[in-house]
């Protein structure tokens, strides 16, 4: 029983560490990528994945070792999972409509043609 508990702690710790590494990776992408749209891609997706790993690990830890199933933490997981990508999308759309230029090596701009067709 002691050993199982130790192994569970190790797995939860590794989950937290992996989430932190994914978050650091998103910060790295935020620094290195060349364009608002690519940077927003890095920031949104990987930061959401990292925070979901950490929150799920915290939920499991509190459920197994402290015997407290937290509805607040579940609500937080669902909320972050829904709103993270939505915020990224809103931000990217605002950038496009306010005329932030694309990276000069981008090869495709579907939204430009679509909005041209819409205007006739």
């Amino acid at each position: 029983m002691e050993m199982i508990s130790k192994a569970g702690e190790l797995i939860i710790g590794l989950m937290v560490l992996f989430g932190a590494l994914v978050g650091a990776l998103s910060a790295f992408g935020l620094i290195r990528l060349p364009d608002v749209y690519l940077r927003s891609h890095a920031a949104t997706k990987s930061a959401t994945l990292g925070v979901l790993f950490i929150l799920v690990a915290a939920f499991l830890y509190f459920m197994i070792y402290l015997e407290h199933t937290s509805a607040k933490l579940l609500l937080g997981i669902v909320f972050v999972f829904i709103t993270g990508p939505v915020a990224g999308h809103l931000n990217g759309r605002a950038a496009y409509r306010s005329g932030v230029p694309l990276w000069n090596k981008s090869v495709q701009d579907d939204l430009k043609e679509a909005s041209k067709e819409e205007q006739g």
Partner: protein
Amino acid sequence: MLSTLLIASLVILSLAILGCMYRLLKGPSITDRIAALDTIGVILLSMIAVICMLLKTQNYFDIILLIGILTFIGTTAFARYIERGVVFEHGDDK
């Protein structure tokens, strides 16, 4: 064992916030800064979850929810402000 891993994750997350601060201060356009701010909020939220596990307390779960909601509302308001120039629009009675 677990606390060592948790403290290491806290250090890594702090470095990630530093990286976002670079983009927040330098970013060429406003949307860069907003994306960096959003990421800082999300990473701060996960740091608070790690601190909860480290201290074995449940009192900070409210803060997790609060920071999540505030980050989303802030990003939405900033995006609307950039797109249209206003946050709240008037109705039909203009």
